[in-house]
């Protein structure tokens, strides 16, 4: 499993300082996903209670719930997605800074022989 690869595990060291912010995002995302999971279930109530049972109140209730749940799920996913983008950029920047600082401490010998001489825009 790729997640248990030593390289990936070592990479988690950069993620750890952000665990608080990531936990908040995780909760928001879980809430959003749980709401998204509820939407298909509403179709059962719609068909059985509202349509087959010919209950207008149940129909309105289902539609209102549908709209509310969809909107709430969207908002939660949007907020968690935006926050996550920021955190992931910060994580990546911390990794870049670490490498950048280290590169500045290396001697010209390293740069004369390293494959990184061929780097360009990927950094």
């Amino acid at each position, binding site marked *: 499993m*790729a*997640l248990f*690869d030593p*390289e*990936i595990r*070592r*990479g988690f060291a950069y993620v750890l300082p952000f665990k608080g912010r990531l936990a908040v*995002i*995780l909760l928001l*995302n*879980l809430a*959003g*996903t*749980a709401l*998204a*999971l509820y*939407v*298909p*279930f509403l*179709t*059962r*109530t*719609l*068909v*059985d*209670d509202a349509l*087959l049972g010919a209950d207008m109140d149940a129909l309105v209730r289902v539609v209102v719930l549908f709209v509310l749940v969809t909107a709430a799920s969207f908002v939660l*996913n949007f907020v*968690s*997605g935006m926050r*996550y*983008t920021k955190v*992931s*950029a910060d*994580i*990546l920047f911390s*990794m*870049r800074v*670490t*490498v950048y600082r*280290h*590169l500045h*401490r*290396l*001697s*010209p*010998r*390293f740069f*004369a*022989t*390293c494959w*990184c001489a061929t780097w360009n825009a*990927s*950094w």
Partner: protein
Amino acid sequence: MSEIQRVLADAALAWLGNAVFLAGATGMLLWLDWRLFLAAAALLPPAIWAIVVYRRRLVVRVRVMRERSAGIGAFLIETLRGARLVAAANAGEREAGRFSRLNDAFVAALTRTQRLSYLAGGLPGILLSASTAVVFLYGGSRVIDGAMTLGTFTAFMAYQIRLIGPVQGLMGLYTGLGAARVSLRRVHELLDEPVEVEDPAQPVPLGPVRGEIVFEDVSCGHGRGADVLDGFALTVAPGEVVALAGRSGSGKSTVADLLVRHLDPDRGRILLDGAPTCATSPWRSCGRRWRWWRRTPSSSTPRSWRTCDPTRVRRRTGGPSRRRWSGRGWGTSSRRSRTDSTRWWARRAGRSRRGSGSAWRSRGRSWPIRRCWCWTRRRARWTRRRRRRWWRRTRR
């Protein structure tokens, strides 16, 4: 880094959402009707297998296609840059033939990728459609028998249709993790690279620097072949101007690297005012007055110092030079990099090339070229300010 960014920014959160959704949807399907779930899930393993296999193949194909596309770009740059050589060798037709072969290879790769991508989407899709057909058949019969309500059946279908998205998302992340792992390995290789030159923990304090430099029996190599410097000795008196002349590879740059402690000698020592440079931290404490530069300037080289000869190690005594080097070719500088250091040059060039102002404007400039007195005055003001700053720095 871009691979890591892709996984971090796009896939990781999506993976979590997909995994939770998949688990939740499976739970709901089981809860709604476990018999129907088992019937529907019978065709799921081959569908997932098809997704995994085709995605893996697709990744390889896409890589090949990108490489061939990049090959065309590289060919164009190479032959257009060397257009004179191609013309001189009368090789225009031959190069056109090479171009055509490269293009054919790219089109072949593109066609194969396209075919595979249809199969990668289509085959799992057909299997999942078969699974849906099973649900229609078995679920419908259960509804007709009255063993299942119509609402439950509809909800079951809704969950089943939404199942395939998360499965594909998870497979995509698996592939992305592989690419990120390779990139992380490279990052870790760099971080594992040992630092050769460390500042002393307790540096010997330097008094006011006079600037006497002594190389004592210094030997230094680069780990390949013979030492570049062997028993090198040099004494530079304070204020003395020294030029190092020699063939390429004779060690001029190594001397300069040793002087500013980019390297430490393998043998011998270097003294600054009698104190060994490896025991003091001279370049940190008086880095503003001691510089090392090459012919190719970097962004951290003071612009006013970019006009010097690379074979000389010299100590500045005058103010900043009037002549400056923009540090970039005209054709290669992007608009963003042109912001401050070269904008001045752009203006200057715009003014001197009166006839060709439109060429500059066509590079994406949104402001009009103003060739009036204000630029001259502004430039003079900037120059004055720069000189004042330099003066303050050197006197500090």
